[in-house]
């Protein structure tokens, strides 16, 4: 497993930092080296929030992530600001509920997955603020950075215990994300999509491919 440099960005209240913490904790439980570094503005509410998580088998030289291989953009500003920083061949997960630009036009050399995480969170748990967990589910199943079991373990340890109801809601949202990406990947393989002259079978996805999920 190569070093994964994951960058999550959104606005205050979207759970960007918690996303990173759960991911980092899960990877730690999995025996990996991890770093987690937040960056947020002065505002008590809202504002821009970034979080960089690095997961590696080797020692990590610096927690700073200037060129992520994975970007999770929870809103439009995050997508527009950071999409160009993703390395070629990388992955972008965009929260379609809050992005109005068509992300496919930003880059042709990264894979861009755009999903309506807010609506999915609302359907799964009744709370729009669990969109971060939907995205986390998609991230983990798609990239296999860490297993679902380890994520669930770290949700149990990080989500407030006095809010036990929220632990199960977080899990619901997580599973919704996982089911979504499972369906997407299955659909791609069964449809045998033709893109740029390549036929896809199994899970082998070309790095040039742009995943279109208008069917979601």
């Amino acid at each position, binding site marked *: 497993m190569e070093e994964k440099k994951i960058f999550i960005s959104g606005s205050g209240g979207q759970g960007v930092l918690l996303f990173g913490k759960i991911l980092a904790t899960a990877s730690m439980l999995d025996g990996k080296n991890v770093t987690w570094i937040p960056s947020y503005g*002065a*505002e*008590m*509410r*809202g504002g821009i929030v970034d979080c960089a998580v690095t997961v590696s088998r080797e020692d990590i030289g610096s927690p700073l992530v200037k060129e992520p291989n994975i970007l999770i953009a929870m809103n439009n500003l995050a997508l527009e600001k950071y999409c160009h920083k993703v390395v070629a061949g990388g992955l972008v997960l965009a929260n379609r509920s809050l992005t109005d630009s068509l992300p496919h036009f930003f880059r042709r050399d990264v894979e861009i997955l755009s999903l309506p995480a807010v609506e999915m969170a609302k359907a799964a748990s009744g709370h729009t603020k669990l969109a971060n967990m939907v995205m986390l589910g998609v991230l983990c199943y798609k990239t296999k950075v860490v297993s679902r079991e380890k994520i669930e373990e770290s949700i149990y340890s990080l989500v407030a215990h006095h809010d036990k109801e929220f632990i199960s809601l977080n899990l619901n949202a997580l599973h919704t994300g996982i089911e979504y990406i499972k369906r997407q990947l299955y659909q791609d393989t069964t449809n045998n999509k033709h893109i740029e002259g390549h036929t896809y079978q199994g899970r082998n996805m070309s790095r040039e491919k742009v995943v279109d999920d208008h069917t979601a």
Partner: protein
Amino acid sequence: MNQIFARPKSLKDVPFRYCPGCHHGIIHRLVAEAIDFFDIREKTIGVAPVGCAVFAHEYFNIDMIEVAHGRPPAAVTGMKRARPENIIFSYQGDGDLASIGMAETIHAANRGENVSFIFVNNAIYGMTGGQMAPTTLAGQVTKTTPKGRDTRTDGFPLRVCELLATLDGTTYIERVAVNNPVNIKKARHAIRRAFQMQIETLGFSLVEVLSACPTNWKMTPLEANQWIEDIMTKTFPLGVYKERSE
């Protein structure tokens, strides 16, 4: 058709990023209206604080500088002495003015610098997450006083207007609030008066504005306004504490 209401020229056409129910928005507006009223926008310089209003320079359409926490009184002293023809004001919260900057505040007031201070008092440290401030009320729950401020160990709320009124160097000191339209009207006049004092070179003026912080007080904006009315004004009574005419 007559235009009877518009954004003050001294405010930029950008949305505020303050929390819902915060009174910074109202106070910014009143200050901008006062600057417009005297038509001094081109020669006014403001000093922004460290705190939630740290980006005040993004909202006010005048020359502004940012200084270290608590040091606006020193900066306004320097600027006013160098450029007496400019109108210089500072805009500070309770941490800035009454905690880390208490010495600067007292001495600028004591010297009777011909400047205007806008003091936003929300009885808490806002931007840093709701810790106790010097102005926190006795019994008030904050992040660092989870059982309420105990005056035996944590001291008493600091009354800046009363304190500065005792200094011979001060000219005009008033405490106002902006939690309802009646109080906003009085605050408008007080802030205007503070600028007028400077224009007429009558000396040091300070307007303390009781301000809501619903986020850190853990109240809704309406509850916060009511709390100012019912509780906060008991510790910090509104009114004029000093007004010298020369």
